[in-house]
């Protein structure tokens, strides 16, 4: 109970409210800028959180994460260009409404649905995280190894594109995670005499390079002018009672879908938004209005993508396994503060855990406040020239990389990762498995070796532990399902075609 009271004290302190406000402002702007998203925003924000307490840094990150999910809908509605992948479904009906001169109404639905989704996702996190964490305390090293492996395989398989590219990305990330002093014997590995690599490849350098620098390079490729912004006046964003009555069911269903899909590793708002929209459309008595500016076509996907925030934090807090690149960045930030997310965190850092649990709900409410008050100003940011955005991202990337250890070595490493990230982007390799493998590498290797030490080198330890067996089977399923899907897609259809 002390943890709850202390966490609420942190959230409602002046510094707590200020970081929530700053996070919401930055999140909406970053989300609204096409191409940028919560992952890039968080990777550029981490250097600013070094000097903060873990509680305040998590509040800042959660606020940015939540608000960026909503911010993506602003450019989706005004420019028909989703700011984030999770806002892609919103663009269809949102832009259609904007073309009818109802941009303000569309944004009001998006903001309200995002807030509802964020709050319900946060409530789900509050209810689910602790019981799951208690369960996770029963896991042994073999079980933890299998959980980490499942996180890796599912993200590699589900993060979009081909399975083999996802798995190669995971292998690359795991390889990077083995650089530095090994966790059991203390032997330096792959350091090539560079003392800078003894602590491993700096996670933040990889993060900033793969996400931010590569995105700045992708922006630099474009030289076309941005689409003209819809001329509708953007002012207040309060939803009328009639629209509330029309959309509350879609908000609710979207929130449930978003929360459940958010919990699954590798499935985030970019999938949840389409599932929620399809579900709302299937249950709507007027499905023909979808695509022509249906209010529910905005409410369902927006509620779902914000609900994934709470859902995605469930495995991170209860198991210590991030299910998305954004939560992997948050895990990296916690590690930089000397903390290891997982079930032990509930006993060791109750104030921090409750600050995160309540923070998701409060951040959603702050996002509503900021979104309502500052929308007319923030709507203009979507027109910032790409050149200025690219230069800005590269500047923050370089300064952020230098801030890691005050070493130019880290800056060069960030640029190298940027080049790798850009090549991956061009070749359609997903970046998420690399980041997740880097974060999970320590968990996977230390538990793998601890399990073998405890069993005197007997590999059967992984097949006698029921938790380990369960998650190893799930890992296998996560790989076999996309293989089967691809095989079925390529198999020629027998008969019936010309019938």
């Amino acid at each position: 109970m002390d943890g709850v009271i202390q966490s609420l004290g942190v959230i409602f302190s002046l510094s707590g409210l200020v970081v929530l406000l700053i996070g919401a402002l930055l999140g909406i702007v970053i989300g609204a800028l096409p191409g940028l998203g919560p992952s890039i925003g968080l990777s550029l924000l981490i250097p600013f959180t070094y000097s903060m307490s873990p509680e305040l840094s998590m509040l800042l990150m959660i606020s940015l994460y939540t608000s960026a999910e909503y911010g993506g809908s602003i450019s989706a509605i005004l420019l028909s260009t989703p700011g984030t992948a999770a806002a892609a479904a919103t663009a269809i009906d949102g832009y259609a409404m904007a073309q009818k001169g109802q941009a303000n109404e569309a944004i009001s639905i998006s903001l309200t649905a995002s807030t509802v989704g964020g709050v319900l996702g946060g409530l789900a996190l509050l209810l689910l995280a602790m019981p799951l964490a208690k369960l996770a305390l029963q896991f042994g090293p073999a079980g933890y190894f299998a959980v980490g492996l499942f996180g890796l395989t599912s993200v590699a398989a589900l993060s979009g594109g081909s399975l083999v590219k996802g798995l190669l990305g995971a292998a690359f990330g795991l390889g990077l995670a083995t650089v530095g002093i090994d966790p059991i014997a203390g032997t330096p590995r792959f350091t090539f005499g560079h003392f800078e690599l003894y602590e491993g490849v700096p996670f933040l350098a990889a993060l900033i390079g793969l996400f931010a620098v590569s995105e700045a390079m992708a922006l630099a490729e474009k030289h076309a002018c941005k689409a003209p912004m819809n001329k509708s006046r953007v002012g207040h964003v309060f939803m009328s009672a009639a629209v509330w009555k029309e959309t509350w069911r879609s908000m609710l269903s979207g929130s449930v879908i978003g929360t459940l899909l958010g919990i699954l590793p590798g499935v985030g708002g970019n999938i949840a938004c389409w599932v929620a929209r399809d579900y709302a459309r299937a249950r709507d008595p007027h499905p023909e209005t979808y695509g022509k500016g249906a209010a529910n076509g905005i409410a369902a996907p927006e509620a779902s993508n914000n609900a994934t925030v709470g859902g995605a934090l469930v495995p991170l807090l209860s198991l210590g396994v991030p299910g998305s690149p954004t939560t992997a960045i948050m895990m990296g930030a916690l590690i930089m503060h000397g903390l290891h997310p997982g079930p032990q965190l509930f006993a060791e850092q109750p104030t921090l855990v409750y600050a995160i649990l309540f923070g998701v709900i409060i951040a959603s409410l702050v996002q509503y406040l900021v979104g309502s008050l500052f929308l007319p100003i923030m709507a203009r940011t979507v027109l910032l020239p790409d050149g200025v955005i690219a230069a800005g991202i590269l500047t923050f990337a370089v300064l952020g990389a230098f801030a890691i250890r005050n070493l130019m070595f880290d800056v060069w490493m960030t640029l190298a990762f940027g080049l790798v990230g850009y090549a991956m982007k061009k070749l359609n390799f997903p970046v998420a498995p690399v980041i997740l493998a880097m974060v999970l590498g320590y968990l996977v290797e230390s538990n793998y070796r601890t399990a073998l030490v405890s069993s005197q080198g007997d590999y059967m330890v992984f097949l006698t532990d029921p938790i380990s067996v369960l998650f190893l089977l799930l890992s296998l399923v996560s790989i076999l399902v996309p293989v089967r899907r691809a095989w079925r897609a390529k198999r020629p259809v027998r008969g019936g075609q010309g019938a």
Partner: protein
Amino acid sequence: MMGAPEVPPNRGIPFSDLITGLICLAGCIAFLVLAFALPAGHSTGDVGPGALPKQIGIFGIICSAVYLLTALRGGFAEERPEFTESHRALAAFAIFAICLAVVPWLGLAPALALAAAVVTLLFAGRGRLVRAAATAAGVWLIAVLLFERLLGLPLP
């Protein structure tokens, strides 16, 4: 009966995919060779610091081989990368890299301001010079006021 035959996808040699596959394969083989040079474990049951890297290397080689085979069979034909505008991205990258190389003489904040200004000039549009100057000034202020003064970062 099947209808009209489907138009085959782009059957050209997938050079970019082949080069990518070969780079991945070479990287994984090199990683495996380095992993074999790592010492064995000391305590009973410990598989040693080289065990996981060896497994990653072997796994990577298998994945690279599958990637190469898939590429040769045209499996990535639908997602063939487009590099026609990549020179602009590489130019932006090179500008920053060159400016960072002169940091020991120029200092980080002025080098970043210069790089930001030149990158902004790469983009078409009216008032490019003004925009570049404003971006440079903004970047210099961010580096000095936000990072050096507020965060106490000892900028070189």
